[in-house]
Every structure is written in structure tokens, then in C-alpha cells.
């Protein structure tokens, strides 16, 4: 990560070899991507759950976009387009570098939302000192930093009213002895995460329940019931996975905290969240499209907003239906020793989070980059998984959705209805907000 940063700064450095004080920091899109990567790394380190991580992605992305949207008349501010968001103040001076402000505002907001601040501080200090070394005029540097502060304060004040803080102390999910009700799953038996995420303020959609999916199949373990069949489908699929299916499941695992237990010894395997994976696909799209910094911030903003609303919508449903996971049902009724390929994440089954958010993110990215858009997804290389190729965002989101079935953690309706839920939400969202004048 540091190395990446240094490489990119080296480019900046080479571009600016003269000693005169410069009026522009000449920040390239790669800096934005690296900063986003830093945020991702810290999210992974701090172990944010998928819904919370989606919130952590959204606000910094919006901050950066709002700064940049002022610089290009073809872009439109999100002011008035996002719930309770009235935009950011304009700078009071023109001695400012907007790109620089955008990056710093991103860092400021990100830093406030994650735990390990020192990890972002380190990065920020490195970044600013490189900008200095690069010869940016000090007044401009200081103005840009000051403006970023105003922007990030505005964004953070707005973020504080989204009910995140209040929901921290809402009632925990209570485990009850009901046959169809979700219960903690091995090996960690963690409590259900974010049972009140549906009460978080949405960004664009009218309400958390605007895209309530069809009811899940009624729990019924009689042999001829639909539910029994769906359970057996998961069980049989899990027992007969071919290599491609296993690879797909692992590729889209995106579980931020897999616990490995060996007697008293435990260690965690941590990965990006589902939202983090799509943020990385957004980066891949930007890079493939050679998107400039403003287009890149727009890409991140739209993707992260779609992800955040999709998580709210999905979580609203999860704690409406509170459906039991396949692993629990199969262990109780069919095979006590059965293990899904993936570790079951700690929240109710319906609908599949990955299906909903991939559906939404796929629609958002397609709205910017079109369909088809062939790309190579190397997001999981760092976790020792191979690359995968897709012809479009839609194809990628289809695969992300079915991966949960192969992984043994979802029944089929959660996938099919989940991707519908996500795409409906995504379509609504891109119809509702306008980021380009010509849209």
C-alpha cells in the first residue's frame, strides 16, 4: 500500500521537477484510488461488518465528489438529492486546489468513521509531505486543507443525523426457541449483527421498506414442502460442487471476519466486505475507462450510495423475516455434520446481502460505463484467489448472487428475489439522482 502510494507520488514528482512553487498539486486519479484502497484496508483491519462498511464508504466518497462537482459544469451536486443533504459550502478563495481538497476531505471523513485513525493519519502525513515536496504553493496547500476541513465537517454533521449513533444502543436480536427463527451459527456463534440497520436514514430510496421483496418460502420441514426442497437444494448443491462453482463461491465470499478454530487456538481470516469488492470493481472500471478524477469520484459516490441503500433495504428485510440459515436447518434435520463451503455470516438469511447489493451496484456502474463492459476482476488476488473475467457488471452481479447458493449459506429465493430487490432499487436510484447535466 505504502509502496503504491510512493510509486504514484513518484509520478507526480517526476511531472513537477521545477523548483518554482506550483499552483496545482496535479493529483492524478490513482491517488484517489489509493486513498480508497487505504480506507478499504482499514475497514478490513477494524473488522467492520458489511452494512457498517457500506456507510463508511459512502460519506467520504460523497465528500470527494461534492468538492469535485464544483469544478466541472457538466456535473451536478448531490445537494437536495440525498436525504437531508444540503450540499457543501463553496470555497471563499480561488487560491485552492480542488483535487487536493477532495482527497483530504475524503481522508477526514473516512478517519472519523473508522477506528484505527493512526493508520489514516500516517497516510495523510505522507501524502501531504509529498505534495509539499512536489512544490505546491503553501497558501494553496493551506487553503485547500482548510476548505477540506469545512467540507468534511459539513458531511460529518450530516452523517451524524442518520441514526447510526442511536442504533448502537438499540435492543439486541433475541434468540428464541422458534423453529424458523435465525440463530447463531458455528464456529463463532456471533450475535446477529446490526438488527436495526433498517432504521438508518436512506440516501436516496424513499424508505428502507420501499423494495420489500416477496415473502420467503414458509418454513416447513415436511418432506414434500417447498421449503424442504429449497433446503435439500442447498444441501445437494453443497455436496456436489464442481471446481468452477467452488471457485465462484470463494471468489465472492467477502466475509470480513472468518474465524478459524483449532482447539483453544483461534485466528481470523479477514477480507473485504461485499461492498468493498464492488468498490474495487468501481476502481477497475475507472482505470479501464481512464476516468479522470472527477469521473472517478462520481463513480465511487454513485456506487457507494447504491451499496449503502441496498444494505439498508436488505437488512430491513433480514430482520423482518428473521429466517434461519441453511446450515442450522441441515444440521438439525438432515445431516448433523454438514458444513457449508463458506462460513455462515452472522445475520438472518433472507434476502442474500450479496445479491441485493451486487444487483444495485451493478445497475449503478452500468449507468456510468454501459453494457457490455468487459473487465478483469482481480479484487481477490491479495487473498490468494485467482482473477475472474466478466463481460458486464450485470454478469458479475449475477455470479455474485449465485455464489451464495454454492457457498451453502443461502436458499435460492434469497438469491433470486435478492437480485431483483437490488436491481429494482438500483434502477430507482439512478432514475432519481442526477450527477451529469446531460442525464
Amino acid at each position, binding site marked *: 500500500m505504502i509502496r503504491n502510494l510512493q510509486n504514484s507520488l513518484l509520478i507526480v514528482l517526476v511531472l513537477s521537477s521545477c523548483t518554482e512553487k506550483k499552483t496545482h498539486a496535479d493529483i492524478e486519479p490513482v491517488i484517489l484510488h489509493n486513498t480508497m484502497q487505504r480506507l478499504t484496508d482499514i475497514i478490513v*483491519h*477494524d*473488522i467492520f461488518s458489511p452494512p457498517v462498511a457500506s456507510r463508511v464508504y459512502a460519506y467520504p466518497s460523497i465528500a470527494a465528489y461534492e468538492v469535485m462537482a464544483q469544478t466541472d459544469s457538466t456535473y451536478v451536486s448531490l445537494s437536495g438529492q440525498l436525504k437531508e443533504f444540503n450540499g457543501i459550502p463553496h470555497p471563499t478563495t480561488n487560491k485552492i486546489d480542488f483535487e487536493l481538497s477532495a482527497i483530504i476531505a475524503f481522508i477526514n471523513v473516512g478517519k472519523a468513521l473508522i*477506528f*484505527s*485513525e*493512526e493508520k489514516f493519519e500516517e497516510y495523510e502525513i505522507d501524502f501531504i509531505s509529498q505534495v509539499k515536496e512536489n512544490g505546491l504553493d503553501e497558501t494553496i496547500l493551506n487553503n485547500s486543507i482548510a476548505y477540506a476541513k469545512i467540507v468534511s465537517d459539513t458531511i460529518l454533521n450530516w452523517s451524524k443525523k442518520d441514526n447510526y*449513533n*442511536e442504533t*448502537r*444502543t438499540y*435492543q*439486541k*436480536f*433475541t*434468540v*428464541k*426457541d422458534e423453529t424458523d427463527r435465525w*440463530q*447463531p451459527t*458455528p*464456529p463463532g*456463534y456471533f*450475535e446477529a449483527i446490526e438488527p436495526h440497520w433498517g432504521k438508518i436514514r436512506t440516501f436516496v430510496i424513499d424508505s428502507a421498506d420501499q423494495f420489500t421483496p416477496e415473502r420467503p418460502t414458509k418454513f416447513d420441514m415436511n418432506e414434500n414442502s417447498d421449503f424442504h426442497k429449497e433446503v435439500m437444494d442447498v444441501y445437494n448443491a453443497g455436496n456436489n460442487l464442481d471446481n468452477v462453482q467452488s471457485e465462484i463461491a470463494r471468489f465472492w465470499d467477502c466475509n470480513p*471476519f472468518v*474465524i478459524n*478454530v*483449532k*482447539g*483453544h*487456538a*483461534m*485466528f*481470523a*481470516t*479477514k*477480507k473485504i466486505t461485499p461492498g468493498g469488492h464492488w468498490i474495487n470493481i468501481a476502481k477497475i472500471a475507472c482505470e479501464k475507462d481512464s476516468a479522470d478524477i472527477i469521473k472517478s469520484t462520481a463513480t465511487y459516490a454513485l456506487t457507494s450510495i447504491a451499496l449503502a441503500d441496498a444494505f439498508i433495504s436488505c437488512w430491513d428485510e433480514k430482520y423482518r423475516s428473521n429466517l434461519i440459515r441453511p446450515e442450522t436447518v441441515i*444440521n438439525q434435520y438432515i445431516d*448433523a455434520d454438514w*458444513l457449508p463451503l463458506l462460513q455462515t455470516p452472522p445475520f438472518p438469511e433472507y434476502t442474500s446481502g450479496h445479491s441485493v447489493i451486487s444487483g444495485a451496484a451493478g445497475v449503478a456502474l452500468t449507468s456510468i460505463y454501459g453494457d457490455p463492459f468487459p473487465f478483469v476482476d482481480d479484487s481477490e488476488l*491479495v*487473498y*490468494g484467489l485467482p482473477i475472474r473475467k466478466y463481460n458486464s457488471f450485470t454478469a458479475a452481479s449475477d455470479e455474485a448472487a449465485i455464489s451464495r447458493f454454492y457457498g451453502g449459506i443461502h436458499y435460492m429465493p434469497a438469491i433470486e428475489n435478492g437480485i431483483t430487490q437490488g436491481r429494482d432499487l438500483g434502477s430507482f436510484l439512478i432514475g432519481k439522482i442526477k450527477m451529469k447535466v446531460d442525464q
Partner: protein
Amino acid sequence: MLKRYTLLFSFFLSLVACNNKKPLFESLSPSETGISFQNSLTESDDFNILDYLYFYNGGGVAIGDINNDGLPDIYFSGNQVKNKLYLNKGGLTFEDITEKAGVSGNSNWNTGAVMGDVNGDGFLDIYVCAVVGIRGLTGYNELFINNGDNTFTENAAKYGLDHETFSSSAAFLDYDLDGDLDIFLLNHAIHTQESFGHANLRHKRSIETGDKLMRNDGEFFTDISEEAGIYGGINGYGLGVAISDFNQDGFPDIYVGNDFHEDDYYYVNNGNGTFTESLKKYFGHTSRFSMGNDVADLNHDGMPDIISLDMLPEDEKILKSSDGDEEVNIMELRTSQYGYHYQFSRNTLQINQGTSMFAETALMSGIAATDWSWSSLFADFDQDGEQDLFISNGIPKRPNDLDFIKFVSNEQIKEKIDATKLVDQQALDLMPSGAVRNYLFKGTGNLTFENKSDDWIPNESLFSAATAMGDLDNDGDLDLVINNINGLASLYINQINEKASYLKLKFDYRSPNTKGVGTKVFSYHNGKLQYKELFTVRGFQSSSEPTIHFGYEDAEKVDSIRIIWPDNTTQTLKDISVNQVLTISPTKVNTFDYKQLTNVKGKLFELLENNMGIDFIHIEDKYIDFDRQRLMPYQVSDRGPATAIGDINNDGKTDIFFGGSKFIPSQIYVQIDSSFEKIHIQEIENDSIKEDVTVIIQDLNNDDKNDILVGSGGADFYNQMKPLLDSYYLQSDSSFVNESFPEYFENASVIKMADYDNDGDLDAFIGNLSVSNDYGNIPNSYLLNNENGEFSIVENIELQKSGMITDAVWSDYNNDGEIDLIVVGEWMSPKFFKNQEGELIEDKLLNGGMNGLWQSIAPFDIDKDGDIDYVLGNWGLNSKFNASEKYPMKMYYHDFDNNGSTETILAIEKNGKYYTLEGLDELSGQLVTLRKKFTRYKDFAGKTVEEIFDGNTLKSSEILEVSNLKSGYLKNDNGNFYFHCFPSELQIAPIMALLIHDFDKDGKDDLLAGGNYFGVKPFHGRFDAFSGALIKNETDIKSGYKIGLDFTNKSVRDMNIISINNSEYLLVTINNAKAQLYKLIK
């Protein structure tokens, strides 16, 4: 005698006086002893703690005289290194005779090592356990038969003992009393702990992991596990085994300690060759990660008690950076759905209560937290007549370090996830070391121990596991031999020598049980009973010298010794001089009658099976307070049910009202002839939504008919929700009518009636416990004035805000003829309100230091001096709470995260500083910002409460305090009241209910106390150990299990005396259980 005492005293004085304290035990070096055994472990990529979960459990050690020269010899087993046999040459020097003896072993992973005379030739043989079949480990359990000439012949196969399994240890016992030694083989599971699996996995036998009972059939041991009822599943993580005749019926029983979620097993010997596993019947809860254990009679009642070790750290830094207790919901899931028992991560000390359940006291006893503990050994090391306790400790790597689990491991290994070996080695390197000291506790005789580790044993950081005892220098006291991982074995030589009296007994019993394994000894001196059994396999993976040792402080002779031989014949020795070794063989024996031990005399209560028609079962609703307010110290939603007795149908007979919990109607039983019948009163059942916590049946409008007043609560309803309103039912001609009552929305706890204004009607005090969703806030309690059956609130702000009230009593404490009010509650001192011409004015009678978690109060002349004293039920000492006047327990109450809802943070003192009770996960579960402040557990661990929260936050908090957790009584000394605490038997759990009655018909009132409480997180466990107590006076207190009460493991909430057909019965109401009815049999 006096001289000896002085000598002893000055000896201890010298221990205390000088700076260079001479410890009770001195460690000898290998150059002095010749013992250089070292259990060195070699980790490899293929074989380490990630491949084999018990990689750090260590080897074994056995002490016994292998050549019958009177000097105990030592055998060590090594995991990977060769085993060693050291011959005792006298003068604490030893000779390594391993090679010549042929006992170095052939397995490549040895575990427990035990000595026993397997073939009955009078020479001790050695049985060495092995782990075979994991990661290429080969070998088998080896049996080295003693040839009698310092050489041995390995002959396990011939005896059928050459198991190729995952063995931890083995224990000798003659379970079928046929005169030879059988073997219980303890095996351990390696089942990857992916999921709990259902508890009934234990019924399906697995060869490698299942425990085995091997019957000695002369030349061969036969596996009779299955027919004998021994479990052998893949879930049995057997690490500890203890043999003892726990129930004193003449047949040895077996206790197996299992690691992880598998329950411990308590095998009661049926006397017919079979066992009945009875853990849940006799134990309210156990340790969770059970390791070694040991048995001894600690409280001089002739019944064996048992300790089981776990791994709860004492040190704050380690405690708060280690994975801790289960979450409430998970415990519920594990117990109710998966069928396991209650288990908590700490040492447990189980006190034998005969035919009742064991009472667990480790927290009160001061021995619950001794870190990563392996071996426990009870013995009277200082020879004062009380059992002391040694605990060995340490692990080379702490795999449950939270930073390792959550942060360290991942960052280092994520890029190499498929390269398993690299992962393992790197992961290993990142686990913190668990090198810690061993513990030694001095027994005090009142179920508590004093930590003498600093004074009595060398302060060395080791990885100590298997430990054995023996008198290596034949000076009459007990020395310790410890098998350390990656370090030289320790020899701790006891220096008490003859500064206190002792007696050492050896047995010469008939072959094949030549050492008399299973022999019991009752020793009596100065009116004190000490009891021991000879079972050599004790502690962890080891066996001790086959002798029995007693200490007698300064006594010069022992009054008598009763010996019960393994065949249950008995003989008695009288007037025995101390400080000698006796070798005893059976002479002039007769059959022992065990009934004299176990028959309970002095029963006052007889539990009725049919309950005379009172089939009331209280069902507590499943609401969990911690789901809403995670940091509450305990629940407040489960304080019911209400109970009142009185004549409801005007037939002159006493009827019963039981309150229901939320959504469950209250139930009324009327007395008809000689039984009870449930009746339905619609008006009352209509209020079933309410949780009825307290109730009275009295005539409130002076129409000679009883009325009913119900106090509602339950802490689930909040704000101005109607179910919080109390209910007032007036009896009209034929039914009850809901009458208007002052509207206030509180969680009721107590209603007490009295005519405090002398106007001829009953007025009410209604005490309230808590504010829903705002624990820590003081609720309003009310004095209500009765005017012709109509109640109105009497303004009295002092009383209204008097605290979190649990109980109250109207009583003329100042003897001025006017009835006064005394209220008690949590986080407050008992408060006296003086009745001054109809006005209740707080009378600050008590000195400081009386803030408690008071649960009950009763006026009772406990010192029989004619004035009224007040008995006070408190939280007791058997919890993780800790409070004193100097260092009160503190509860900070504040909206810490400024989000509109309040939190409470509890802090207790340790070594002069205050630490939060909860760890980072629990605190940040409610206060997310702490995650920003402490990004690593090690940054948080060891921080005081002041360091965790900034000063301003703490300053703006309200602080509630508790400085006394003991139950006791306020003794009336001419109108002044002084607090006296009860003995430890009454501090074993919260005392929730008190009842005055002359139970034993001696013409004097007695006080009956009941209690126990389960509304706490697994962090505390379950307060289930109180069997009740009959308090006759200050010194005469009888435990409930001795007088016929069955209160252990039941949370008693109310007790009433009911007259049925001119006989008296005790009605006991229990939270979440069936009501009990006892006949008073005196």
C-alpha cells in the same frame, strides 16, 4: 503444647518479619538433587498447537516407592523426550536409573504417568499414556511391570492395556470391590471445534477419543465401558479425572473434567458394576474449559469436595486481552437447544452436600481465577489441620489472546493463506507467552482460602503442568514435584518439617490391592474431623505417593482414627501420637454402616410430592435485560413472582395468590378440605399482560372482606405504558372489581401495609426497583394513604426518592409505639423512616459503609435479648463483585455516548485501582467510540476506569456505590444498630426471602432464609449454591440441606406458612420453577 505453639508462631512471625522471607517450599536445583529431567518441546511445521490442540498440555509425573526401601521415587514422562525414572537415594539425592530399569518408553507422544500395583505383587508398576494416530504419532500406552529389582518389563499388550488412542491419563480404582485395581482410562477428543454438536454425541462410542473403564480380570483388563455406562463420544475432551466415593455409599465414583463445551461427567457407582452419569442432577454448573481436578474434604463434614480448574486469568492485563465468557444468548442456545449444562470459564469448587446438589463456592473462596491452570492438589502443606491448595500454571503460547485472534494473525498471514505451514509458524510466533507463576493457597477452614503464593513458593515464571506429592525426605510433610514444559522439573521441598504436627499413614492391604487404594480415614482430634481417601491419581496426568497425610497444628495426639478398608470393613485406632508414620493392615475389622454418615438427622421439613393440588409453576418470560441495556450489572426483569396468602373466598381458610410474569395471568388457589383448587377470577385474569412482582391480600376498605393489591413491574414495559400501573381489586359480594388507584408508571418490588396514621385503615408503602431502559436512575416509591378504601399519594420526597427498593418492613424500631418504616434496596443503605405523628421522616441511624445490594429485611430478635434486630439479605460474596468500605464497588451512570440513552459502567477495585468489570468487546458493544480510543486489546487491558473514560465524562456521571455485599443483621444495642455479618455459608448467594416462624417448636421464633439468583451474565455464572438456612440465633445456623430443604439451584423468592387442617406447611415460591410445599415435621 504451648511451647510448640509458640515455636510455630515464632516461625510464622519470622516468615512475616524479615524481608527475605523464607518460603514454606524451597526449590532444589538439579545439581543438588540429580534430577535434570526437562520436558522440552520441539515445534515443527507439521506438528504444533495448530495441528494438535493439546500440544502444550505437558507430560506426567508419578511418585511412589518402586523398590520398597521406604524412599519415594519419581517417574517423569516426556511428550517428545524420553521418560525418566529417578531412584531416591535419601538426603534428597536421586539417581537416574531409566536405562537400567528399561522405562524410557517407546511412544513418541507421552502424556499421563501413574503408578499402581497392577499385578498385586507388592511392587508399584508404571502405566504411561500416549497419544497415537495424530500427525503420524506412533506408540501405545505402556505398562511397565516392576520386576522387583529396579528393572521393569513393558507388558501392556499382555494385560490388554496397550491402547493406541488419544490418552490423557489413567486412574486406579476398584470399582466393583472385587479386590483388584481396575483402570479408568481418560481419553481426549480432537474433534475440530467447528460446531458444538448436540450433547448426545457422547452416546456414540469412538475408539480413539472415548474414555474407557477397564476391568481387571486377573491377567487381563477387559473394556467394559459400554455395559458400565461410561460415555465415549467424539466430544469428550477429557483432561481431568478424580476418583472418590462422593456419595459415601461404599463404592468409588468417578468425576471426569472435559474441556470446551462438553459437560463434565459425574459417574455415580451403582454398586452393581454400572455407573449412572448424574452431572446435572448434582451440579448446578461446572467449569467450562475443565482441566485438572482434585478431591478433599474441606469443611470437616466427612464428605469429599471437588475442585475443577479452568483458565480465568487473575491479572487485569491478561484478563482483558483474553477471550472471555459466552454471551447470554449463546449460553441459552448451548444449554436449551444443544443439551449442555451450565459451564463458566473459571475454577469451580464444589462443596458436597450429601444427597443434595453440590454447592459451588470458588468465587467466594478466592480461588476462581488462577490463569491457565493444569493441576490442583489439596493437602495440608502447613499442617494446621486445614486443606491448602496448590495450582500449577502456564502455557507457552496463549492462543486465546484477542489481539492475536482479531488483528495480528490476519495481517501476517492473509497473503499466505494457502501455505499452511508458513501460516502456522507465523501464527505461533505471534501468540503471547503465558509463562506465569504457580499458586499456593492456605485453607482457612471457612470455605475461603488465602493466597500465599508470594510467601510460600518460589516466584518463578514457568509452564508447569503435571504435579505430584510425596514426602521425598521422609520428614513427615508433603513435597511437590512438577513437570515443566521447556524447563527443568521443579522439586519444591516443604520446610514445615516438624514445626507442626502430622501423621502419615501407609496401608498394607491384601493382594492384589497391596497399597490399599480406596481406603478411607476419618481422623478426630480436638473435636475436629478430618477425612481422606487414598486415591493416588490426582491433579493432572499424575499420581502421588500412596500415603495419607494429616496435619494437626500443635496437637500432640490424635483422639481416634477410623479406617474403612476398600472392602468396607472398618477398624478404629485410639490415642495416637503425632509425628509418626503408621503402616496399618486390617485387624479386628467389622462391616462399616454408611448410613451413619449419610442419614440426615434433625430434619424439620418434608417435601410433599403431590403439593396438595398447588400445581403452580412460575414461567419467567424470556425477556433479557442485557439485550436492551448491555452494560447493566444484572437483570431486574426477573424478580417475581408475587405471592400472597389470605382468605379470598371468605370461608375462613387460607388461599394463595401467585403472580404471573408478563402475558401470563396470575393464579389463585383456594383451599378446600385438605387440598387446593385453582379458581379463575376474570377481572384479575384480564390484567394478564402485567408482570406481577408483589401482592398483598388484606381488607383494605374495612368491609371484612379481603381485597387484593398487586404491584406490577418486569422492567420490559417502559415510559408510561399501562402495564406498569399497579392493580387494586376490591372484593364485592361475589367477585373482585378493579378499583381506581394512583397512576404512576414504575417497576414495583414490594408492597407493605400498615396503619401508619392510626386512622383505622391500612395504608401502603409501595417500593419500586428500577426505571426501565434507564437503569441507574432512581425510581419513585410511594407512601399511599388509605381513606375509606381509596388510596392517594402522600407527598414525601425523601421516601419517594429513597432508592432502588427491593424490600421494606413496617416496624417500630425506636419503640415509641408508632410504627416506623425501614426500606432496603440496591446501591443504597437500609433507610429508617421514623413515624412522627403520622409523618415519615428519615432517621440517619446507620454509620457509613452500609450501601449494599440488599434484597430482603426481616425484624428478628437474633440475639434473644428482647429487642428487635433486623436481618438483612444481601448479594453475598460468591460473585465477581467486590466491595468494601475503603474500596466500594462503583457504578457510573451517564449517557456516555451522548445518544439519548444512558449507560452504567461498573468498576471494582484491584490492588488499589479501579477497573471496569466488562471487557472492551462488551463496553464497545454499547459505546462504539471506545473502539476508536483502543484499537488493540492490549491498549485497553490493564487500564483503569479513569484511563478508559476521560475525567470529564466520569465527573459528569452519577456514581452509585456498594460498600458491603455481605448478608447479616443489624443488632439493636439500646436503639443503636450495628451491622454483623453472617458466616460464609450464608454469603454463598443472594438472600432473597426471609420468613419468621417457630419451625422447630422450641417456643422461640426462628428465621428461615432462602435465595439464589440467575439473572446475571455468564461472566458471573449462576448463584445457585444456597441450600437455605434456618437461623435460630447468632451462632446456631443450620444449612437447608441438613434440615430437609431442597433450595439448591432454585431461586427462592417467597416463603409462607400455611395452615391446612391444623397442620403447618411451608409454601416456597421459586422463580421460573414449580412452587414447593413442605410439611413441618416437628
